[in-house]
Structure formats: structure tokens, C-alpha cells
């Protein structure tokens, strides 16, 4: 995209973009490490995920402050306006993803040695799928690529069906030994959190689509051109 005549405006928008991508990269790593912490019962790793949430909150605050300043001082229009409005949405959504990853890390502390390998592997695979989704969504953002954004939205169905089959096997796993219901129910929350992260990736993709084209996509059930 061509430069603004006032180059400091271009710098400010780029700074905002870079911060969002930093938040996104942080969220991606938090998801990956949180699900690894579940699988490997690595409490130390889980704690680092929880700690990184503070950095995430800080970056979100910085993004919001940048957006307010740009709106007040630059009065952005057209694609710049969409970029700035989209940025608020993206920052909030990515911050939510960080929270969910933090919850997963918390839950991982309760996973025990006795827990089922199949369940663990399921979490690992779903965690990988979700963090890939986020990666693709962020990639679409950095290239302002509407087509890539749509493919992220379409892939959410895969994550949902992954979730549904996980849910079934988790329920079976939980109920087969009522004494362990307490710890095993943690898995339910873990996969639910991963599924929610998948939904947020869809929200990111919708925002990217809007930023790139000015067209809003309402619900994921709506046919996508």
C-alpha cells in the first residue's frame, strides 16, 4: 500500500499492526505450550503460560491506546478506518485467546500420570489444529488477504467436528471410573477451551475480511460468496 503524505501516520498504523502481530504470536505460543503442558504434565511450562498473560494484557492496553490516539489525531478514513476499527476487535479477540490458553494451563496442573494416553493425544492434536488456525488467521491479517480469511472460517467446521468427537470419547473416559470424575472432568474444560479458541480464530478471520474488503461476514452459517 502506498505511503501517506504524512509519513508519521503510516508509521503509527504500522506500529499498531506490528503490536497486533506480536499479540498474535504470543497467543499462538501460549496455545501450543498450554496444550503441551497438558500432554507432558509439565507444570513449569504451564506456569510460564500463565505468566505470559500479563504481557498480553499490557499489549492489548497499548493497542487500545494507539487506536484512540489515531482516531483522535488522524481521523482515519476508508481502508485506514477499517484497519483501526478492526485493530480494536483483533486486540480484544487475541487477548481472549490468551485467557483461554491460560485456563488450559491452569487445568493442566490437575492432569495426573494415570490419565489416558488417547485423551492426551487428542488434546495435543486439537491444540495443534487450533494454533495452526490462529497462525493462518494472523497470516491473512498481515497480508490483508480476504481469501485466506475465508478459508480460516471454513476450516472452523473441522475443529468443531474434532471437538464433538473428542467430547464423546471424553465423556466415556470420565464416566468409566466415577472415582476419577474430578480430575478427568478437567479434560472437558480443556477441549472446550480449545474449541472456543477456534471460534475466536473465526472472529479474527471475519475482522480481517472486513479490513481487507469492507464487507462484513455475519455468521459462519451464511454462504460465503
Amino acid at each position: 500500500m502506498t505511503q501517506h503524505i504524512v509519513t508519521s501516520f503510516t508509521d503509527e498504523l504500522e506500529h499498531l499492526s506490528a503490536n497486533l502481530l506480536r499479540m498474535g504470536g504470543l497467543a499462538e505460543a501460549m496455545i501450543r505450550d498450554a496444550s503441551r503442558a497438558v500432554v507432558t504434565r509439565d507444570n513449569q511450562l504451564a506456569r510460564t503460560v500463565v505468566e505470559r498473560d500479563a504481557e498480553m494484557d499490557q499489549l492489548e492496553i497499548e493497542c487500545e491506546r494507539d487506536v484512540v490516539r489515531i482516531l483522535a489525531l488522524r481521523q482515519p478514513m476508508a481502508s485506514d478506518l477499517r484497519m483501526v476499527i478492526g485493530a480494536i476487535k483483533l486486540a480484544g479477540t487475541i487477548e481472549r485467546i490468551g485467557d483461554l490458553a491460560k485456563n488450559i494451563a491452569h487445568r493442566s496442573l490437575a492432569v495426573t500420570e494415570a490419565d489416558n494416553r488417547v485423551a492426551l493425544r487428542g488434546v495435543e492434536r486439537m491444540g495443534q489444529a487450533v494454533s495452526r488456525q490462529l497462525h493462518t488467521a494472523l497470516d491473512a491479517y498481515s497480508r490483508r488477504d480476504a481469501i485466506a480469511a475465508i478459508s480460516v472460517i471454513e476450516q472452523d467446521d473441522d475443529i468443531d467436528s474434532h471437538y464433538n468427537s473428542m467430547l464423546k470419547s471424553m465423556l466415556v473416559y470420565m464416566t468409566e471410573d466415577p472415582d476419577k470424575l474430578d480430575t478427568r472432568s478437567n479434560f472437558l474444560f480443556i477441549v472446550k477451551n480449545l474449541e472456543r479458541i477456534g471460534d475466536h480464530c473465526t472472529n479474527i478471520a471475519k475482522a480481517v475480511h472486513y479490513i481487507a474488503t469492507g464487507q462484513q461476514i455475519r455468521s459462519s452459517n451464511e454462504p460465503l460468496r
Partner: protein
Amino acid sequence: MLDKTETSQPESAPSDKDTKIDCRHIDVFYGEKQAIFDISMPIRDRSVTAFIGPSGCGKSTFLRCMNRMNDTIDGARVEGEIIMDGADINDPTVDPVLLRSRVGMVFQKPNPFPKSIFDNIAYGARIHGLASSKSDLENIVETSLVRAGLWDEVKDRLASPGTGLSGGQQQRLCIARAIAVNPEVILMDEPCSALDPIATARIEELIDELREQYCLVIVTHSMQQAARVSQNTAFFHLGKLIEMGETEMMFTNPSNQRTQDYITGRFG
């Protein structure tokens, strides 16, 4: 991304019953030099249309076509049709003075006559024979000043000179003068460029009220002003109409790359 770089002129929206002025294939020349190239555009009634574009792109020239002010410029020649309420305003049988009472104009620099506030407003009403008595005239003066939002500030000094008012007041006086002759259309060429934010807000508020009754066209260099006051926006570049559409669309998602570059402050 869509291809947003095409250079042909846009198909302007077809004119319909809401069209007050239908400009068709307008070319304007200053001597040999062509300033407007084949512009067609319907201007809606009871609505504000904003003209935006870089300096020298032809906004004022095109605006002046609508009340034949270009007739007063030596060497200026207008071609094409400008249909207002079904008749071409360039038809030789049309009296330009009468036309200008139907299509009023407000300029960038407030230009009150060197007369009293009262006479500034009364002048047009008198020459167009709109008042049959003194009280008629007083009525017109008061109504116009009230509508222009100036009455309370000047009612006690109607006899003092219009040129003694502040810039913002003078501009509202000029608007009052324009509406005193019952126009149908009001053309404004950068009416707020010499005004402070409060005076500007007053004029914008006034424009918003006037739109219930008049067809307004405003040239402005402020994107924010165009966005605030208009319902439709036309973007001009090098004498051509590049894009015209609903203001909201033009400022959130213009379809032409050059419109986009201009309103976001990028190199065109």
C-alpha cells in the same frame, strides 16, 4: 483485492424522481483549456451533495455550471445539458438572474454587501418583487435570519453594516441572504474555510436543517466536513468525476483506488 484502478468515468446513478438537477455530459472550457471532461451526475433534492477533490480539479467550475455563474467569466464555455425540474437551465430563454434566485450561492469568503444587515437580506427580496409591503419585507428579513440561526445575535442592530459582523456571522448573513429569495437549490463553495470550529459547527447544523427543504451542494476541502454534512459525495480529479456514491460508502469503502488514496491522504 478487487481491481480498483480502472480509469474510465463511473456510470453515475441514474436520475430518478428524487433528482433535482440532472447534469448530463458536461464539458467546460476556459478558452482552449478544458477544465471539465464529460461529467454526468444527478443531484438529489432535499439532500446534501459534497464535492471533494484536490485543488484545481474543477469542483468550483462544475458547481458554477449549476447557476450559470460561468457565464460571467470571460472565455468560459459550458457544453452539455443541465436539467432542473425538466428544463435545461442553459436554454436561451432562461433568464440567468431569475435562475440565480432559484439557485443561490454562498462563497468561501463571506461577501456581504456594504449595506445594513437588514438591507443585505431585503435587497434580493426587493429586486425579485417578493415583498409587497414594508411589513412583508420585515417578515422575510426576520424569517431568513431566524432560519440562518443569526436572528438572536443581530435583531437589535439590523441597521448596522453587515460588514461589521464576525466572519462566522457574515457567512450566516450570506446564507440568510441566499434563502431570503426562496431558492430551491443552494450551492456552497467552501463556506466554512475561513471559520473557527464553533462557527463551522453552526453552519453545518444549519446545512443539516436546510436539507429538509432545499437541494444543497457543498464544495469542501475537509473530508470530515463532507462526511458529516452530506448524504452523497462526488470525488473529482483532473476535471473528471472519478467516483460518486453514498457518503458513508465513500468514506468507509470507496471502490476506486484514487478516491481511496485521496481521502486517506496518500500519494495519488
